[in-house]
């Protein structure tokens, strides 16, 4: 899809009408243009993860919030998957510039502990309780990693995806 602007030039009696192609507006064509969801248009159904920040940043606002589905045109399942990936990316610290704006003149309190590194966090940090009694082997309370919505993602290694650690 190419966008161009029409430019008219007059030299006395001759008028030249030219279509000037804007070089920044030349977009590559999606491989599957006849699909309602942008992810199905580009055949990225099971191929993205929380690390693909370039893809995820196209669907978020500048303060990190998600854009509504009626605007982006995503189908329901892909919208939820992208929301999950964006949450995991925020918690892993991969989107440092998309934080909500602090009120003016607000000095952040000196934090007693520096933020801990984490990745593939399913639940929000403040909502999780410690597992004081894990239980016996046959009824162990496992710690969940990642999200079951992403279990159909393409795996290039023979090992299966472990969600319960």
């Amino acid at each position, binding site marked *: 899809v190419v966008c161009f602007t029409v430019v008219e030039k007059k030299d006395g009696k001759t008028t030249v009408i030219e279509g000037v192609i804007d070089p920044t507006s030349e977009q590559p064509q999606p491989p599957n243009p006849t699909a309602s969801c942008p992810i199905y248009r580009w055949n990225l159904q099971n191929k993205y993860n929380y690390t693909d920040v370039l893809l995820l940043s196209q669907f978020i606002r*500048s303060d990190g919030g998600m854009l509504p589905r009626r605007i982006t045109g995503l189908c329901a399942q892909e919208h939820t998957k992208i929301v999950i990936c964006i949450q995991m990316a925020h918690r892993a610290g*991969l989107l440092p510039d998309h934080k909500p704006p602090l009120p003016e003149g607000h000095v952040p309190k000196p934090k007693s502990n520096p933020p801990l590194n984490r990745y593939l966090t399913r639940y929000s940090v403040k909502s999780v309780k410690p597992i004081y009694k894990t239980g016996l082997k046959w009824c162990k309370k496992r710690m969940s990693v990642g999200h079951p919505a992403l279990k159909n993602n393409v795996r290039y290694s023979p090992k299966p995806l472990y969600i319960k650690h």
Partner: protein
Amino acid sequence: MSSFSRSAQQWATFARSWFLIDARMQPPGKIASMCSVRLQGKHKPIYHPMSDIGDHVVVMNTRHIAFSGNKWEQKVYSSHTGYPGSFKQLTAAQMHKKDPTAIIKLAVYGMLPKNLTRRTMMQRLHLFTDDVLPEDILKNLTEELPQPREIPRKLSEYTQEERDAFPMLWTPPEDYRMK
């Protein structure tokens, strides 16, 4: 190498090497399994459980370890000294704040064989919270091991050309603002 003299070949097989692992943004379990393999000597073809052929392992940046999932809040380390009322349960986050090397130390301790050689192997493990290592250990290091986990890039680490080269998946409608 077979081109060495016999004494040099013998020295090369039985010498104790020093490995370096950078634990920045790495899961502590994977680091601990790599450490335990090399502390026991299982990476050598001359391995035998009774012969003391483990190597030294130095782990740096243990303060910047990364747990997957919500393990910082969910994983609980319990200890009991035997006296009544001394049952302590600490979450991984509290443990890490108290002692940044404790998580890897306990992980490696649990992965080593449960016999009397375990204590000597733990003495050969050297843990450091940051990348500042003492001089005598720096002089002994022979090899650095590759990190088990690929660190994902943040959005700020991508160059403007890479961001422009990535195509826009969807076009926003003209009357929508606030992005």
